[in-house]
């Protein structure tokens, strides 16, 4: 009885979480009467076939992907190095760095966005608002997540592993490549995926610092004031499906490697 109650409760929660997404997906197949895709009219596949028929939507998506990939890549390298420095080395300002790294995570986005804009506007000689400033802003907040995740992983594994590698004749570079990196790679990957998702998703900070450049969220915000075409739902649904595919892939991969190690026993 109790178990059933729990199942029902869980299903209700999942339903509650999924309902908005379901609506988004459903309305990606709608053929709206006016400029706003708010009322169900009739089923069509046109929106999916002509997903880029809205002026600027394709460029916005490409910009989002470019910013997301580039910022995630740079932030992952940078964040990993910071984490290693904080965990493995003693240096002046280590404690301060440790605290400052948390700031972008704990500061309200609107404050971050506004402050960054102030910075960029005061240094127009170096920074013109656009792709570059969006990229810098995204690296800044992704780095925090990378540092925190990789740091936890570094603290979690036996320091003697690296000493053992040195002991067995590996120099510092080889030790990093053969021991440290493989051990922190899962943490780096997890943090990078999260960072990428945050970057694709971010509106507030990006809006402040985008100038004339449009990422997908900024594009949607702009267009929503005059019309909401169903293509927006199409892109949103596609992003959701990709995310689901990645998650399922991950589960499958873990299941397979678990089976492989069991097979070796």
């Amino acid at each position, binding site marked *: 009885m109790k178990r059933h109650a729990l199942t029902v409760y869980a299903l209700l929660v999942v339903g509650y979480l999924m309902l908005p997404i379901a609506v988004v997906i459903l309305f990606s197949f709608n053929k709206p009467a006016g400029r706003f895709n708010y009322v169900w009219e009739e089923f069509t596949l046109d929106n999916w076939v002509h997903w880029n028929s809205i002026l600027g939507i394709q460029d916005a998506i490409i910009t989002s992907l470019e910013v997301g990939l580039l910022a995630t890549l740079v932030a992952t390298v940078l964040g990993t190095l910071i984490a290693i420095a904080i965990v493995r080395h003693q240096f002046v300002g280590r404690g301060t760095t440790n605290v400052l790294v948390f700031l972008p995570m704990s500061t309200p986005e609107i404050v971050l966005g506004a402050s960054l804009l102030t910075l960029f506007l005061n240094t127009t000689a170096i920074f013109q608002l656009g792709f570059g400033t969006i990229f810098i802003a995204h690296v800044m907040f992704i780095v925090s997540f990378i540092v925190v995740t990789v740091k936890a992983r570094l603290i979690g594994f036996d320091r*003697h*592993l690296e000493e*053992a590698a040195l002991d*067995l*004749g*590996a120099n510092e570079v080889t030790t990093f490549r053969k021991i440290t990196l493989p051990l922190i790679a899962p943490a780096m990957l997890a943090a990078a995926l999260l960072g990428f998702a945050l970057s694709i998703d971010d509106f507030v900070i990006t809006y402040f610092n985008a100038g004339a450049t449009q990422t997908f969220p900024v594009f949607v915000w702009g267009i929503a004031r005059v019309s909401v075409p169903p293509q927006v739902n199409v892109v949103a649904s596609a992003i959701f499906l990709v995310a689901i595919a990645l998650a399922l892939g991950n589960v499958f991969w873990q299941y397979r490697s678990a089976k492989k*190690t069991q097979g070796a*026993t």
Partner: protein
Amino acid sequence: MTDTTRERQGSNLSQTPAVADVRLEDVVKRFDDSTAVDGISLEIPRGSFFALLGPSGCGKTTTLRMIGGFEEPTEGRIFLGDQDVVGRPPYKRDVNTVFQSYALFPHMSIEGNVAFGLERKRVPKDELKGRVAEILELVGLSGFAKRKPRQLSGGQQQRVALARALVNHPRVLLLDEPLGALDLKLRKQMQLELKRIQHEVGITFVHVTHDQEEAMTMADTIAVMSGGKIEQLGPPTELYERPATAFVAGFLGVSNLLPGTVEGADAIRLDEGTVVRAVLNGRSGQVAAGVRPEKISIGAGGGSNELPGTISETAYIGVATQVVVRTAAGTVQVFAQNMDAGGRIPAPGTNVVLSWAPESTFVVDRADSVMEEETE
């Protein structure tokens, strides 16, 4: 290397085992707020099994880590063979370490772990395969090559750690309490196994432990450490039969220390008046006469040193009966061998004479012994 030089070197080894493989000269290691190692000098001959023995926190691990290259000494010099290695990173030292936590690489197979050192030396594939298989055979893990470390038991992991170090044929193998995590039975078994492997490969072993029995069973030479210093260094029998300090006497087995004053060339007058004869080693003044519990006989005839007393407690412990005797010089412990099944041990309350040989009597500083009694 030609065969004749190899032969000559080989014979050199057997004739003069005093070629030092590891030499420490006045090594000091200070951390921010403490001195972990406080002026250690020692020489470890090639091919020997050397144990660093001492209580927790006495600086054993720190000493080992300085030899391995993971810590640099604050003062002093460290030689491997004839080369001063201070300042050299671990990967440029011809030593390998077996870590207390084993430190096996979790993402590599057993094979991968063992091959790691050889790969760094760019040993050709065929030779590498052969050597890995050979060493896994030696430690009895041939069937486990493809497994991951976490799929092995503690004892098996310990042997992988050993194989991973040994396969490189280092000049010296450093072992930091490698048996600490094992249960008693497995530990005893691994002690013998380690000893066998050391005989087989002939590499110098430096073994850190705080278990005196382990050090005694395994090592040719033991350095007893305390507070960052070496208290005494020598073969196990010497440390046991002739401890130089009250600390060593107390750390290796049980001993009775009777305070007194040196009188003449080979005698000590105990504080309560009895005169016992001892091996003085040139000591004079206030000392303590020491004797091991198993060297004392209950009743006359055990030797010319005699001390009267009253039995206060007896406890049967299988191989021996432990007897506590109250004497005017202090409480004395005696281990009486259970030679035959009949209970020859007198009951508590009986007045007896304890006797032992002068050769079994050692001398240590009295200041130490007083301190030791206070802490007990």
